[in-house]
């Protein structure tokens, strides 16, 4: 689905990532870990076409990102759900409208997905907050709304960058369970986190592989976690 081949990325002078090869197979569950500033977010951005590699090849659904037009990138993003730590919403639209925004922008109106939308809202536990505006949400509610928005198009891949960064343990467990459920439904999941206890908690429920970025390279972490 997403394939990186000898990818390097440099900001200005310094090289942040080099010689990275990675393959996210359908239905796989990966954690991406490493110290802050190691390039987790950059690697995530390479995976959905927000950044272009300075060397090597990134293939999204079989197509090299360098050959993609801006519209093609937009279409790729309809197949990749992205959740950020500091997720942004459209603050003038309510939670329901924000969650169904991917439907709106792809020309499918939310009314058409009425039943599914309700189910999704229940799944992330935001039914009560449907009419709230994003600034009124708590950190955990924002993350769950972000997850709902990321999966409403039923994407093939879910990328979550520090999804549990600013929420409490219980809430992060809940979010993790949602991601594991998605994986069981066949979605490819990649979670970037520096929270090792989250990875341990996940390993009890799902066959997860842990990738670690160290010294600009990526390596498969052993069973030491």
């Amino acid at each position: 689905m997403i394939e990186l081949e000898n990818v390097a990325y440099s900001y200005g002078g310094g090289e942040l990532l080099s010689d990275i090869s990675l393959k996210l197979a359908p239905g796989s569950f990966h954690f991406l870990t490493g110290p802050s500033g190691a390039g987790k977010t950059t690697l995530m951005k390479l995976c959905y076409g927000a950044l272009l590699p300075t060397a090597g090849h990134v293939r999204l659904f079989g197509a090299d990102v360098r050959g993609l037009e801006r519209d093609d990138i937009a279409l790729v993003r309809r197949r990749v759900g992205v959740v950020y730590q500091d997720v942004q919403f459209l603050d003038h639209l309510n939670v329901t409208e924000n969650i169904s925004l991917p439907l709106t922008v792809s020309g499918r109106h939310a009314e058409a997905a009425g039943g599914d939308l309700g189910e999704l809202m229940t799944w992330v536990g935001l039914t009560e907050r449907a009419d709230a505006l994003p600034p009124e949400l708590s950190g955990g509610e924002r993350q769950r709304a972000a997850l709902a928005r990321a999966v409403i198009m039923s994407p093939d891949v879910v990328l979550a960058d520090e999804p549990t960064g600013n929420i409490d343990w219980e809430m992060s467990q809940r979010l993790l369970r949602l991601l594991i459920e998605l994986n069981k439904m066949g979605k490819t999941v990649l979670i970037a986190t520096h929270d090792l206890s989250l990875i341990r908690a996940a390993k009890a429920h799902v066959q997860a592989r842990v990738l670690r970025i160290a010294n600009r390279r990526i390596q498969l972490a052993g069973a030491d976690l």
Partner: protein
Amino acid sequence: MKVQTFAIRSLLAGDRHAARVVPPSGFTAQLTLFAAGSMAFLAVFALALSLASGRLAQNWGEELARSATIRIIAPLDQRGAQTEAALRILQTTSGVESARALSDDEQQALLAPWFGNDLALDSLPVPRLIEVIETAQGMDVSGLRLRLSAEVPGAVLDDHERWRTPLVRAAARLRLLGWVSIALITVTVAAMITLAAQAALSANAQVIAVLRLVGATDDYIAQAFVRRFTLRALGGAGVGMVLGMIAVLLLPSASEAGSFLTGLSFRGWHWALPLCIPLLAGVVAFLATGAAARRTLRELA
């Protein structure tokens, strides 16, 4: 081009969903409306000026070109005879449709603005005027002048050419100025809308980033802005145009005596022309916003 057809379609279809993804903006919206309105107001006057000076040039050109005047300057006792002689020559000149000597009363009316009504014309050696109307083919002015100088020594032929030309040129220049003003107003509207759209796009950078993240295409994002600015320009210019038309309506109309000078007001079907101003403003806003949006969006990830 693709963006444009897409945007036109959504503009006509009135995709309210797309329009809603960009947050409403209060104050800048008012400014755009106001600017479009005042420009449309000015455009109405520039248009009126162009049309009026065009009419003026045409009137002066046509009316004066088809007429000439002969002055008979002679002692009182010979004036009648020379007038007769001149009229006889004119009757046999080809290209002359009609010729007649002005009566004393008519000459008195012409002189009244300068000398008052009590002037005793009979006792003054006032030249007799003969009004000559030419046919469409026109007459041979120099030939006529030669014949007159041979047979009517006191006759002076004036074909108005001398003062008609600069008048017509002035009117034509005035008309050009009017059209240049309209062109400048159009370009100014484009510049203002571009600035406003650019500002709106920058102010909404975060909104655009969110839309890109969830898979919106550039066309989709652009049309939300294009639709908004086009409707604003259309609305603002509509109001400005109506106010401008009312102002033109309230202009004092040209009086009977000054009818030669034509009023600044619109005539006949020309009243329909200002209706194009809001449409033009809409088209300008549509193109300007589309270009600004495409340029800005390309720079964003």
